[in-house]
């Protein structure tokens, strides 16, 4: 679509103007013409801005007590995380867990990792968690496809693994 003002450049700014008698009018302008008209516009919101806008309402829900949370490892507080939308260290994920879960839910639609697990340095505990997660996933799939016999087998495997984990 071409800019309705200069008819030369492509229109990148699309505005809907509602006049006093409730008549809607769409305006399509290029960046230059919008600037000349002194229209307030922004081409691209920065990622931090978008994230901050997600974090803010969650912060309010969390209550003041949680807002003063500070990571004992890197010293960053929740307000700084909210402002920068960046973590200070790996421990922040645990310290701010309550606050970040809803954010992750909004961004990714999930709060649980299902992918690769490090094989090298992190010990066998994590690998067992991985095994459990994989089994849970399989169980979900089998139930969905109504393969109940196989699902029961997986359910038993999960039980066994969980008891073994407890006794270890």
């Amino acid at each position, binding site marked *: 679509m071409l800019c309705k003002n200069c008819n030369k450049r492509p229109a990148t700014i699309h505005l809907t103007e509602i006049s006093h008698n409730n008549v809607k009018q769409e305006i399509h302008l290029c960046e230059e013409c919008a600037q000349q008209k002194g229209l307030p516009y922004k081409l691209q919101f920065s990622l931090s801005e978008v994230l901050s806008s997600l974090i803010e309402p969650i912060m309010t829900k969390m209550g003041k007590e949680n807002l003063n949370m500070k990571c004992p490892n890197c010293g*960053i507080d929740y307000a700084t995380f909210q402002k920068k939308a960046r*973590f200070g260290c790996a421990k922040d*994920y645990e310290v701010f867990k309550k606050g970040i879960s809803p954010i992750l839910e909004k*961004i990714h639609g999930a709060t649980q*990792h*299902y*992918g*690769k697990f490090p094989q*090298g340095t992190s010990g066998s505990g994590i690998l067992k968690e991985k095994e459990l997660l994989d089994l849970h996933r399989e169980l979900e799939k089998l139930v969905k496809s109504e393969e109940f016999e196989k699902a029961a087998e997986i359910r038993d495997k999960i039980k066994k693994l969980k008891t073994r984990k407890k006794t270890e």
Partner: protein
Amino acid sequence: MKIDDLMNKVGTWLEGKGKDSDIVISSRIRLARNLDNFVFLTLANEEQKKEIVGFIHNALVSAKIIPPMHYFSFKDLTSADKHLLLERHLISRDHAEAPNGVTGQNGSRALVINDKETSSIMINEEDHLRIQGLRSGFQLAELWDEINELDSRMEKHLPYAFSSQFGYLTACPTNVGTGLRFSVMVHLPALVLSKQIEKVFQALTRVKYTVRGFLGEGSQSMGDFYQISNLVTLGRAEKDILSEMENVIPEIIKYERTWREKLLNEQANQTKDRIWRAYGILKNAYTITSGETMELLSAVRMGINIGLIKDLTIAQVNEMFIFSQPAHLQRIAGEALGPEERDIFRASYFRGKLTKPSK
């Protein structure tokens, strides 16, 4: 290997080979990783950053990743070198344009690349590590195997920050989980011409994909080139993200092909005129800006793909894309050039490449 060596060759990811390479220029994978025992770069001071670089360097040497891969400390690179690496898609804009350290010499960032320019590791970009793979055409699965293996070798020597709930922990919550971003750079001139591109964007956004310009995050699209990437990194296994991408991208390729045919059938004269005009300008103009270059090369590239232009190959056009960018041009010229001088030099570069010597 020296940075200058990049000028003697074109990265294999530009050779125009691989599946659907008429429409997919390149496939890219990026993994974000951090170390457990250091603060993230958001908080790290210059000293800590240098420590991180040193720690990672030693680990990569123990893992025998360096060599064969080559290590470059940013303190040894000029601003022109870094822009060359950016134009080569080996580092991000943030990495290239980061201000020098307190001491005036930036020893707190580094880059590791292989000979073929198909894999690179950025050290201290937004995360401690950004592992990247690049291939020509639509080859995400093959590329994933290669990068996954490199990552697995690295994690035996590096204590990655990881939690069983949130996966690989990253500085920004948008990358947590797999830390994995698949991107394909596609050339969609017919969808742009037919104004179908908005529909594609809307559909992609609905399924949580993002569309960016030629040089990635923060860059505008030029000459009908777009980079399509997955947004979701948490809650899905790498293989699932991959197989979804392998379903989505071919649909876009099909859509572009359908519109190319439609344009050729219904607007044959305008389409041919656009392509031959672009070729004519590239062969004869005296001054060409970088923006115009993208438009012209885009038209010529489509001309080759639909069998109209027969004396040029996709690989040659891909090479011209890279070498006509500012940092590359100035290397060829052997001196710094102002914007206007660059436009003149760029035009003469194209004339040299495209005019056959008279018999």
